[in-house]
């Protein structure tokens, strides 16, 4: 049974087929090529339960030992130094620090990245015309999509690095600090 399912069933037109044998099995396989499927219950449900319990458990443990921060009451007159955005935006803040035109890293770059993310599935397609295959070669890098992978990986690494620097390695006046000092 297991072994059979790994081969793909191809009907040979030159052969005739008939009932040869009745095999033990848990479900009828009539008119069905062997396919690599299994019952969701119990296989998937077990995975789902274990995964959900594990995540909930870990979250509980974290919440037991790590308290959410609550600083002083909000005070518009006391500006903290440095004032930081939530951690997922500190990467942008870090980029803004490098330039005196905040509109570029603050608005234009994030907007372009989002538009590019939206477009990925529409530019990485099988090229049909001469133009699209040229387009593909420039922005995707052929069947192996080398260029796209390089671009996406640099986006992810860049986001990671700048977010880490911005949230952990920046202190007063946005000077470089070491978080363990």
């Amino acid at each position, binding site marked *: 049974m297991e072994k059979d399912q790994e081969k793909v069933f191809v009907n040979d037109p030159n052969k005739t087929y008939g009932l040869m044998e009745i095999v033990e099995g*848990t*479900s009828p396989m009539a008119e069905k090529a062997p396919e*690599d*499927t*299994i*019952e*969701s*219950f*119990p*296989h*998937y449900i077990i*995975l*789902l339960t274990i*995964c*959900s319990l594990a*995540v*909930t458990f870990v*979250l*509980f443990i*974290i*919440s037991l030992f*790590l*308290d*959410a*921060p*609550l*600083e*002083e*009451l*909000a*005070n*518009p007159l*006391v*500006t*903290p130094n440095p*004032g*930081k*955005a*939530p*951690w*997922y*935006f500190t990467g942008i*803040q870090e980029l*803004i620090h490098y330039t005196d035109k*905040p*509109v570029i890293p*603050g*608005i234009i770059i994030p907007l372009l990245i*989002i538009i590019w*993310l*939206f477009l*990925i*599935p*529409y530019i*990485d*397609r099988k090229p049909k015309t001469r133009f699209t295959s040229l387009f593909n070669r420039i922005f995707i890098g052929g069947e192996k*999509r080398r260029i796209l*992978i390089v671009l*996406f990986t640099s986006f*992810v690494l860049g986001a990671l690095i700048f977010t880490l620097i911005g949230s952990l390695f920046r202190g007063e006046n946005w000077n470089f600090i070491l978080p363990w000092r």
Partner: protein
Amino acid sequence: MKKGILQRILESAVWRSIFRTGIPDTDLKRSMLMYNNFFLHIFPVKMKRHGLRFCYTFCLGGISFLLFIILCVTGILLMFLYTPSIERAYFDMQALALIFNGKILRNLHRWAAHGMVVTVFLHMVRVFYTRSYRPPREFNWVIGIWLLILTLALSYTGYLLPWDQLAYWGITVGTTIMSYTPFLGKHIQYFVLGADEVGHEALLRFYVLHCAVIPFVALVLMAIHFWRVRKDGGISGPL
């Protein structure tokens, strides 16, 4: 042989009226169990063996959704204990620490929120590297990007609610970045905050967005997202 207590319960009329299928000891009953259960019927009755491989999806989409549910539950409980006004919000937060398990409630909500930002992003990274956005899944990727944006918006609007220094200045910094938009910057900032700076209007806006508008939109998009995963033929195959 005498019937055990478990079997008696499973065969009782009450149990059978709730769970019609009975003990799933045949494939047919296993299928019916998935098919007839309201919560399970969003899953297919049979799945590709490949789609269950942990190292393909890393369960990141599922974990994102689980965290979203945890956030809804803890968030609703928090709503019972929180007033969105600049006079009371901060002190409600302080009082929360004195309530039985109040601190844990807040911690769960906070860490699940940060966790969800991380898992949704990693889910996108997984989908990219497995190239799962290819036809027919292009549009599900687009919905996914919207979900990523909404997740960030949820987290960001929630950030203001404790009304402490961290919240106030975090939002001030963020909305200042928005005001850098050419031509429209100041208008966008005013639209988001309801005033020139972070204050009562902003707190109320962020509260409504955080507790009603964005969760609702996100939930609808998630429903479409899951629907499309099935309609597009389940989890994508290996590259």
